[in-house]
């Protein structure tokens, strides 16, 4: 049992590290803010979760605590990405797009409303 958990742990840790790298690399490589956010959020979240889970498996008495952190990351990371994207958009940072930007109108409406106030 312990050995199984250990190797499982190795696996998750390795996977996590790789995804952490990919997330950072994505942030480095992607062309604009929103696409960077795409890469950064997904990969680093999974990477961190996986790595921490790996540690939790290798060290079973730590498992619950690592689980808490995993849950926290799962909740908090997407939210901070969302808040950042919203914040960036409101500072007039337009996304790189050839197709559609449905959000633009909403922000504009909002701004005119604020000015009227």
């Amino acid at each position, binding site marked *: 049992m312990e050995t199984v958990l250990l190797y499982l742990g190795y696996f998750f840790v390795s996977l996590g590290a790789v995804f952490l790298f990919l997330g950072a*690399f994505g942030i480095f490589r992607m062309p604009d803010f929103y696409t960077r956010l*795409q*890469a950064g959020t997904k990969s680093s979240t999974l990477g961190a979760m996986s790595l921490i889970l790996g540690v939790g498996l290798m060290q079973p008495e730590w498992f*619950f605590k690592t689980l808490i952190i995993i849950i926290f990351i799962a909740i908090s990371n997407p*939210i901070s990405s*969302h808040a950042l*994207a919203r914040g960036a958009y409101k500072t007039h940072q337009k996304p790189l797009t050839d*197709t559609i930007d449905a959000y633009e109108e909403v922000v504009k409406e909002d701004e005119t409303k604020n000015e009227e106030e």
Partner: protein
Amino acid sequence: MENVSNISKLIYTWIILFIVWLAFTSTLATEEVVTGMFVSMIVALLSFRFFTGTGLSVFTPRKVLYLIQYFFVFIAALIKANFHVAKIVLSPKLPINPGIVEFETNLKSDFAKMVLANSITLTPGTFTVDIVENRYYIHWLEVSATDEESVYKEIAESFEKILLKIYE
């Protein structure tokens, strides 16, 4: 939904927080447990009014089952998403076609909306930029459709179906 009693909310909050405490301390030593119950009760008293809208009612077997189902759907999407990102990031050409699309949700509670938004964010090629009333604005790495119907189908349907069952 509105009729959830405060006691139920309080106890729900207390239980959740106590579980968190137990996870933090990772021990069942008497003094720790007693302290934990005490501390979680204080914090629960402080926060139960807004911590939960459902109270203990969320603990029906059906809902718990849906929760588990949601968990697996989500994990699957998450892993898919990551390999998707890996592919894009590592490919020399960066094959993307980004844009922001929108769709409308049927979820009512803020909490459910949040869960959906987070799920979308962690799944392939998409993340939630904002929710305005019931409309989601999603940044999509490879825009394959712009009409709401297909956007909804593509991005949100699988999660929302389950969430509706848990929270409505």
